[in-house]
Each structure stands twice: as C-alpha cells, then as structure tokens.
C-alpha cells in the first residue's frame, strides 16, 4: 500500500486553507459589489417607473384638455350659432306678429326667452370646459374674470394679487394652474365656510409660485389626499414637475396651499 512519505500536514493544509479563504473573500467581495449595483439598478428602475407614470398622466391630462377644448368649441361655435339664428328668427317673428293674436306673441316671446337661457347655459358650459380668455389674455386676467362674479354676491371675497412682469406661460401650464386654483376655490366655497380667500401669484425665476390661503375652518384631520379633487391637484402638480405643500395654517387658522411650478420658457 502506497503511503504519503514524510507528508507534512501543516505545510499541506495551510496553503489549502489560504486558497479557500481567498476564494471565499473573492466571492464575498464580488457579491458586495453586486448588491451595491443592484440597489442602484433598483433606484434607476423606480425613477424610470415614476417618469413613465408621470408621462402617462401628462399625456392623459393633455388628451383630456384637448378633448374639452374641442367640445367647448363645438358647443360654442355650432350649437351656439344655430341657437343664435333661432333667436334672431324668433325676434323677427315677434316683430311681424305685432297686432295679431296676442297669445302667439306671448308664445314667441316665451320661446325666445328659452333660447336665450339655452344660449347663456351653452356659453357658461363652454367657458367652464375651456376658458376662452386663457389662451388670449393669460392666467391672471382669466382668474380675475372668474373671481369677479364670485365676489359680487358678497358672501365671499377673493383677493388676487400678482406682481407685474409675469412671463407668458405655456398654454398647458396656465391651464393646469387655472384648474388647480379653480379646484381650490371650489373646495373653499363648498366646505371651508370661509369669508376671505387670498391668492398670490409670483414669479421667481424659474418658478411660478402660487400661494393660496383662506380663513375657513381648515381641513379635517386626515382629509388631505382623500378626495378626487385633491388627487387631481396632486396629479397636475406632479405632471408639471412642481411641488405642493398644503394643510391648515397653525396661527391664523384656515387652509393654505403653496404650489411651486418650474417654468421652462
């Protein structure tokens, strides 16, 4: 039987232990490097996913607004025009029928008044769908024109302040800001029991900052992010790659929201 002659076990086993140690260290180091790269990849995936979702939201809002614009134009231009012609004919008929049967005249006046009501409704619906001034006169003028009739009854007073020299915003940015502010005003009127609202719009390059405050009862606890309106505001701010801070004012009471939107002019 063959035997290992003069085998020195320490000399034989020590290098083997070192080799195994080197292998183990090598695997551990590679694994650590891999785990580090893996977390970076996870982060990249998250960013990509978030960008994709934002892009999806942006295109969905864009499509929605384009569709609203089309419907508003169709209502205003086609239905409105036809109804205006009807109204004109009714006026002419009224004039021609003077002296004839009084009940015919009364009927015509009634139909004309109805057509005027429909015309006013169509104008109001089409303006709500897409404010016509926004593209022509910009965000501030549009807001002023919307605020004026709200202030008239005297239940609530909305004060809009902005510094001169506001840049011309891209149409979609103006529209999104308009929708956000309208949603906030709507919420204040519906739920806040406020008597005063202050909207301040400023431009600090490259951001447009909108500060919204009211003197109402504020938001109930855990109410933020619960409603569809809130989600819609968040979605629009996210699409504009802006930031949104909102809640209840600690000292003065009431609700506040600060929206900061970068403007790529």
């Amino acid at each position, binding site marked *: 039987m063959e035997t290992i002659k003069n085998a020195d076990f320490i000399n034989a086993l020590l290098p083997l232990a070192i080799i195994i140690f080197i*292998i183990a260290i090598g695997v551990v180091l590679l694994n650590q490097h891999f785990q580090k790269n893996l977390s970076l990849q996870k982060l990249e995936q998250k960013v990509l996913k978030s960008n994709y979702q934002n892009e999806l939201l942006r295109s969905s809002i864009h499509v929605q607004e384009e569709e609203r614009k089309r419907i508003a134009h169709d209502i205003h231009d086609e239905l409105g025009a036809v109804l205006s012609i009807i109204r004109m004919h009714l006026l002419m008929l009224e004039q021609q029928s003077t002296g004839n049967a009084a009940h015919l005249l009364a009927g015509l006046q009634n139909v004309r008044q109805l057509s005027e009501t429909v015309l006013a409704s169509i104008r109001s619906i089409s303006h709500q769908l897409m404010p016509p001034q926004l593209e022509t006169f910009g965000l501030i003028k549009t807001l002023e024109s919307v605020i004026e009739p709200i202030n008239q009854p005297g239940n609530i007073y909305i004060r809009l302040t902005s510094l001169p020299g506001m840049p011309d915003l891209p149409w979609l940015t103006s529209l999104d800001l308009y929708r956000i502010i309208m949603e906030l005003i709507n919420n204040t009127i519906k739920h806040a029991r406020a008597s005063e609202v202050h909207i301040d719009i400023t431009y600090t390059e490259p951001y447009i900052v909108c500060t919204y405050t009211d003197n109402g009862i504020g938001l109930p606890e855990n109410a933020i992010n619960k409603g569809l309106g809130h989600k819609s505001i968040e979605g629009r701010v996210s699409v504009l790659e802006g930031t949104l801070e909102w809640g209840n004012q600690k000292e003065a009471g009431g609700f506040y929201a600060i929206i900061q939107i970068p403007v790529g002019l």
Partner: protein
Amino acid sequence: MAMNFSKIIIISSHLPILLTALYAAFSYKTLGHHLKVFSWFIFLSGVTQLMSLLFWFKSKNNMPILHFYTAAGFICLAWFYGTVLNNFINAKIIWSMAILFLLFTTINTLFIQNVFTFNSNALAVESIQIVILALFTFIFFLNNIVKESSKLDIKSLNWINSGLFIYYASVLLIVYFGATITQSFSKTLNRYTWMFHSFFSVVMYTCFFISLWKRSKTLTS
C-alpha cells in the same frame, strides 16, 4: 491491462470535447450572444485538445500547448463571465483579473515553470479565479431582479457554470496536490489521478453540451 484501460479513458475523454465543439460550430448561428461568446472557449478547447492529442501520439512534449491554452482559455472565460454579469458587475473588475492573470502566467512561463514543464502555478491561479466567478455566478442567478430584468437564458448558462465549477474545483485540488502526487505516488496511481482529471473534463464538456442542447430558442441569451 490497467495501463491500457486508463489510456483508453484518457483518449476517449477527448471525444466529448470534440463533439461539443462540433455541435457548437454547427449551431453557432442560432446561438444567443452569451452562448456565442462561450462557443469560442469550446472551439479553443477543441483545437488545443486535438493538437495535444496529436503531440501525445507522436510522443512529443505537449506542455507548450497547455501554457498557451491556460492563458487563452482564461481570456475566453473572462469574456464570457464579463458578458453574463454585464450591468451588475463592473466589466473592469473581470478584465483586470484577466490582465493580471495574463501577466502572471507570462512571468511564470518565462521565469518559474518553463514552457516544457507542467504549469501548475498558472493552473492553480486560474482555477481559483474561475471557482470565485462560478460561485458568485450561482448567487447571481438566484437573484430575483436578475431573473426578471436580464434576458439571460439562466437554465442554459447554469449548466455551463456548473461544468466550469466542477472541473476547475477538481483541477485546483489535483494541481494543489500535484507535487505530492508526482513525487510520492507510483506511476500507476499518477495515471489514475489524470484519469480522474479526464473524468471531470468529460463531466464539464457534457454540461456544456447539455447547455447548448437545452438553450432557449426564444431568448437571446
């Protein structure tokens, strides 16, 4: 008798290599990127084994071929692991390993173990590096993110990795105890050791063949 039997085993151990190399050559066009890269290692093995067999038959020293094969084989394997672990392991790490090994094996051949002797040092270092890469690749293939995000044909590549791990782990032990074997054992037992080496080589090339055979036809592995 034992001599003849072991001789037959050693010679027949070359068959799976040549068979795998032929299969890789025939199916090369249909292979995915990673398997194409790996095929170059199989081709290199096929050619060098054929040459060393010819040298052996003509009773010429075939050690220079082994010196060349050790260096070139590791470059091929580094290229293969580099492409498999791409995006998750910095390619510079693997190529640094390859360049350092190339330097080491050159120095070893020129100054330590000359080209006509068995290059146990280079083989041991190569085996250590391949065992590290193979063990890590097993961990790599188990990761769910790798499974989901990469388009690797893991089933097929696992066979290759297993073959490499089995062979190089055994080579490491044979090379490590090589000095003791050649000095302390009889020629018969020495031949048996190389029979074991041939057996592990057959296992490795069988794994490669299975890998090519079982490759995904849809994934660009």
